[in-house]
């Protein structure tokens, strides 16, 4: 017996997951609908703007999520849990040497823009790219905290739950990350 879409609407992630486990396909579709934009956007940032790759990884993220849905215990929000999987999917991808995308590609495209507004946009994109690279160069624990906080919009408390540490520790990590990013961006022109 499936719950109607109307009944599913308005439920929170945990309730939707419970509905999925009870055999409700509509709830699963609703979960995807509510979260896939965040997952895709964060993966676009992680991959340096490679939308095709981000789309592939987004699908991969959901494949893994369905496989391990039983392990979702509701301690954190479903979105944060999903971001953790997306982040791992990205890490697993970049650890395969043949598939590492050359980061310079985006910059090369941007440099070709010559019109004033386009130049400004190109500069912004370059800055974004520098920041993105600096974030990806952070140590693992700091990197996850920063990307989860700003690219998946998770709160420090949520990150703490998914990492199994205290919220205070997450804030400390974020502060350390800001300092490291400041130094890194200062060093690059």
């Amino acid at each position, binding site marked *: *017996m499936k719950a109607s879409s109307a009944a599913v609407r308005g439920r929170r992630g945990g309730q939707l997951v419970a509905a*999925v*486990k*009870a*055999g*409700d*396909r509509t709830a*699963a*579709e609703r979960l*995807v*609908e509510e979260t*896939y*934009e965040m997952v*895709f*956007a964060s993966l*676009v*940032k992680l991959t340096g703007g490679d*939308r095709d790759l981000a*789309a592939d990884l*987004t*699908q991969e993220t*959901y*494949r*893994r999520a*369905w496989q*391990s*849905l039983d392990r979702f215990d509701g301690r954190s929000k479903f979105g944060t849990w999903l971001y*953790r*999987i997306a*982040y*791992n999917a990205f*890490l*697993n991808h970049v650890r395969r040497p043949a598939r590492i995308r050359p980061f310079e590609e985006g910059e090369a495209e941007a440099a070709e823009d010559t019109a004033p507004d386009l130049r400004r946009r190109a500069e912004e994109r370059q*800055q*974004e790219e520098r*920041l993105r690279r600096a*974030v990806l160069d952070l*140590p*693992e*624990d700091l990197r*996850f905290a*920063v990307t989860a*906080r*700003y690219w998946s919009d998770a709160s420090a408390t949520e990150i703490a739950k998914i*990492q*199994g*540490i205290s919220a205070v*520790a997450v804030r400390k990590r974020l*502060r350390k990350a*800001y*300092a490291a*990013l*400041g*130094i890194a*961006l*200062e060093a690059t022109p």
Partner: protein
Amino acid sequence: MKNERDIRRRLSKGSPIEPPAGLLEAIQQEIPEETFGPPLTALPETAGSPRPLRFVAAAVVILAAGLLAVGVARNVGLPGGVEPVSEVALAEAELASTGPEDERLRSLGYIDAEDGVASADRAPAPAPRFDETSRALRTLEASSVREAPADAEATEPQRQQLADRSLRRATPPPASVAPREADRSVSAQAQLRSETSKAEESPVSSETSFDLDRVDENELADEPQVAEAIVVTSETPVITVFESPAPRARQVSAEGVPGESTPGSRAPSAKRAPSTPPAAQYRASLDASRAFTERVPGLESIEILREAGRFVLRARLEPKFGLEIEVEEDVWRELPLSEERLVRYELDEGLLGELRPGRELRLRTMPDEARGFGATFRATIPSL
């Protein structure tokens, strides 16, 4: 250096990213059917008709009433009630039923060693486990069986004794009565467990069942000295945690003793704990850790040392196997392996998260060849 606020602003900034058309549908189409739990099926046809339900309910009520009436009749002694079976007759039946088969069941723990009655509320003997504690428990159970009277060869006085005992059983004991003799072996097991846990809490204990006297310290020249060993057993595989006196060794060095001790080297013997032979303890702990690792393919032994306040994982692997640790969900890191098949890996709190007591680490043995058979296992960090 750019200030924190600027960094945060830049991190928060970003143009909205629209997902490509068709991505949502593609993901939704890929949702596998096995994701969903058992589907909620319609109730059987009978559910639609009240008649069968009514019949079942009536039958249950009648049955319950009948049982109640029989019970009341037995207690009150009304004529027509079922005659309660004599306790003496039961005891006689027990004696008659005692045979080789009972002996076998008793040795397996399915029959109580004391009175031979199959006990429904007593769990059967625990499944054999590869640890010393279980072995000791089994030994204890065996000895309690040996101490029990041989019911099969009961003489007339023994029969009388049994009859008396059954009469005593018919009278409810006072609240302060001592535990039944039949529970003695269970209590002894609990006591042994208690003693074992005490031994686990205590660095050196005479109750430790390992043979500590035969340890040759020269054998352990390359091993770190151990001041404390804690062994915790659970359903999951267990890591043995050692407390290394490395900080103390360094302190000695800072005070002017040449040759600073590093993890893995020997600490000056003069500075060891007075009644603590570290080498002996180390051997005992090795034995304990080996007990469970026998079950993990490719893994010979594993342990966590605590050196200078940091946890260090040490493992020995069988040929053609490697060891990996899960640093994040489904992200595994291969641990460096020496030519001697040894792993020495300092657990990194930054990478693995907080290393607190009770924290479970996921590890797996990986065969060099893809066709080999490795295994994923969990290891719990016990409290020190």
